[in-house]
């Protein structure tokens, strides 16, 4: 008897499952209910509207930078440098718009390490020496120029800090940059052109790889480590960590009992650190909402029933942007001259970081480490 009832139970259970399946099949083509959310469409939209165009725009800005750089190198003067600074600023601002896409092609090319190294997060800003944060290794750069031969592919800090934006920033806008160019034109100009060529090659590689990478990107709707959604959510937290750390907090002296490291602000010599920070966080909000097109992470949160969290995240984004805009550039001077404004921004950054590092990953079930985990 028991066997029969068990078999009957299993048959009924299976029938119920099949009925549920077929019912869903017969319905509309969209996701099953109002709660449904098309993750693939979200990822496709990210790839087509923000990521691929972002790298294309970066390629364009780098081409403009090369043109302005050629003009400057042909006749180094304050006048030609003013034009160059516009092109440099435009390129660096464009980089901030793709900075949070450090996965897939950009991650494979190690783009962020080689063109805009932040120093990473796992060290002490106060005690770990010069080559931390958004530094420039001017000694290495000068050595390279003198030697006339160099390799840009070494996986060491001195290599990261002697190419990409840090190197250009120093060579264009550093102390006595124009005098040094006029004193030693050949090797110095060669170095600048080599840095630009290396930069272009890296960005071309990333931009060139994305169209082929796109198919796998939009097809993978998992949320584990290394998945597109997992990577994007982790990048929100990582970019906020960079903002709280190397971009603002650590130069401000948060790790060092108030001792300010003004020269370690991003693009220090160009004096545009504040503008870069604002662009970074503004872009992050734009990524979070997918430019408000209804296919963003924010919409995914709403579909998961997390409206109030989403509202708070958006409000906090706006607050951080406003607080950062209130800090006058150059940030390096404001760290001491406008400490209250920096402190106010720092506080709001930490609140946004908490939301993006705890509430959002928790709400979306995103993994942050590879390790086995049976607890939460």
């Amino acid at each position, binding site marked *: 008897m028991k066997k029969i009832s068990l078999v009957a139970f299993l048959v009924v259970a299976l029938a119920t499952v099949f009925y549920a399946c077929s019912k869903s099949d017969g319905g509309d083509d969209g*996701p099953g209910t109002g709660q449904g959310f098309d*993750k693939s469409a979200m990822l496709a939209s990210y790839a087509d509207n923000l990521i691929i165009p972002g790298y294309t725009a970066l390629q364009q800005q780098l081409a403009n930078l090369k043109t302005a750089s050629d003009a400057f190198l042909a006749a180094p003067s304050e006048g030609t440098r003013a034009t160059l600074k516009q092109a440099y600023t435009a390129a660096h601002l464009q980089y901030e718009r793709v900075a949070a896409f450090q996965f897939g092609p950009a991650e494979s090319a190690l783009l962020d390490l080689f063109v805009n190294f932040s120093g990473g997060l796992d*060290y002490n800003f106060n005690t770990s020496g010069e080559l931390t944060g958004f530094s420039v290794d001017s000694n290495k750069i000068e050595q390279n120029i003198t030697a006339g031969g160099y390799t840009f592919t070494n996986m060491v800090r001195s290599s990261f800090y002697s190419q990409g934006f840090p190197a250009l920033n120093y060579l264009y806008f550093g102390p006595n940059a124009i005098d040094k160019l006029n004193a030693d034109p050949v090797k110095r100009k060669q170095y600048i052109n080599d840095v630009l060529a290396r930069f272009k090659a890296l960005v071309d590689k990333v931009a060139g790889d994305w169209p082929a990478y796109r198919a796998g990107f939009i097809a993978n709707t998992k949320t584990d480590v290394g998945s597109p959604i997992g990577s994007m959510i982790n990048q929100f937290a990582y970019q906020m960590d960079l903002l709280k750390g190397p971009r603002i907090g650590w130069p401000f002296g948060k790790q060092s009992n108030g001792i300010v490291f003004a020269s370690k602000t991003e693009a220090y010599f160009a004096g545009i650190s504040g503008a870069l920070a604002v662009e970074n966080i503004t872009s992050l909000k734009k990524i979070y909402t997918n430019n408000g097109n209804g296919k963003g992470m924010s919409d995914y949160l709403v579909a998961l029933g997390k409206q109030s969290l989403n509202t708070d995240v958006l409000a906090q984004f706006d607050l951080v942007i406003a607080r950062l805009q209130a800090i006058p550039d150059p940030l390096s001077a404001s760290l001491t001259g406008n400490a209250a404004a920096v402190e106010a921004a720092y506080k709001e950054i*930490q609140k946004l970081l*908490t939301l993006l590092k705890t509430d959002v*990953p928790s709400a979306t079930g995103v993994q942050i480490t590879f*390790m086995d985990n049976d607890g939460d």
Partner: protein
Amino acid sequence: MTATNTGRFTKPVSIAPLVTFRITFGLLMFVSLLRFWWRGWVTDVYVLPKFHFAYQGFEWVQPLGHTGMHALFFTVLAAALFIAAGFLYRWAAVVFFLGFTYIELIDVTTYLNHYYFISLVAFIMIWLPANRRYSVDVWLKPEKERTQLPAWCIQVLIFQISVVYVFAGLAKINSDWLLEAQPMRTWLPAKTHLPLVGRFMYEPWTAYLFSWFGAVYDLFIVFFLLNKRTRPYAYAVVLVFHIATAIFFPGIGMFPYVMMTASLLFFSADFHERLLGYLPGYSPKKRTGDKVYNYSGQQIFLAAFGIYVILQVIIPLRFLLYPGHLFWHEEGYRFSWRVMLMEKAGTAYFTVKDQAHREVYTVNNAEFLTPLQEKMMSTQPDLILKYAHYLASEYGKRGVNHPEVYGEIYVALNGQRSRLFVDTLVNLAAQPLGWGHYQWVLPYKNSTNQQ
């Protein structure tokens, strides 16, 4: 105790289930540890971190460096194979238990319930004559062969498996799990990529189905496995449940495979005889008649078995002695078979100040902890306290006078919004570690309406 009272524990039964268990356990442990090594975790987890979260009372358990840790893993891997082969079995079991447990005791943040289960089983295996049939030991010394052993040798393992299931089931009887379908409601929408079932993952009823099925399964599966008539169906359900778990939650690691193989123990001796019969060189029983393994001083083993049973029931219930919400405070949470029970995440900011508050340092957790350690520390009070003490000693070395450590920690539990976890005004460096209730953890506030 009289003979009749203990008879059901001491009566001779076939050794076959234990032989199957020995072989599968040894091989599974070998694969499990090899996977751990192959993924680079030996280095990531036991070599690279500057600081380890020791278990209270086991602070002397320290990592052994790059060479030492790999040598230890190699030794334990070899021991696992020796157990499977039944070669120098007693020594292999001792080495495996000590080595594996040593590894697990290095860092609390690597705690997994099935690692605890493995340690317990390995300890039990030391005392069982699992090598007395179909083993290298018997092949070398045929006179050692036994075909039967006292029933408690199998029963103790079945008890241990039952404890895992029943307490995992009891843990699920809480309002979040049953009434809110949390954390399934949070986790399942992340699984829409799965073929066939993916489309249902946004549906609340799916989360309720998973929650209730999981709770009923854990609570009752043991009884269906114990019953001879329902056993085959129950084991089919075991397979379906754990394979589903492995597909839905790959992050859980080896747990499903451990439970699937361990649950074979419920099957009869005849089943295991037939199963082992498929293996090369396994000679059917009754060749020379049954030879029973006799324990000298069996009463001592039975008494120890009794104490073990009591401990295994008390340990998961110790949480009852603590005030406050278990998931929030996690006092008495570990070693209690609470598997995949809650979604908890946190972010922890620490500030170090000197005694006079003239110096203020914001701590960069990434300087001291791996991402895994930071994630685990951020939500567990005892780990927060250990880390705060470590920070005090580190900043003391850097010349900070009587460092005080303050935490601003936000924790989100089961789909709710994050909120402040510990009292920001308490100097954590001055709070003692202990088994008592930590007063500096802020009380849990439920707000189910807040999303």
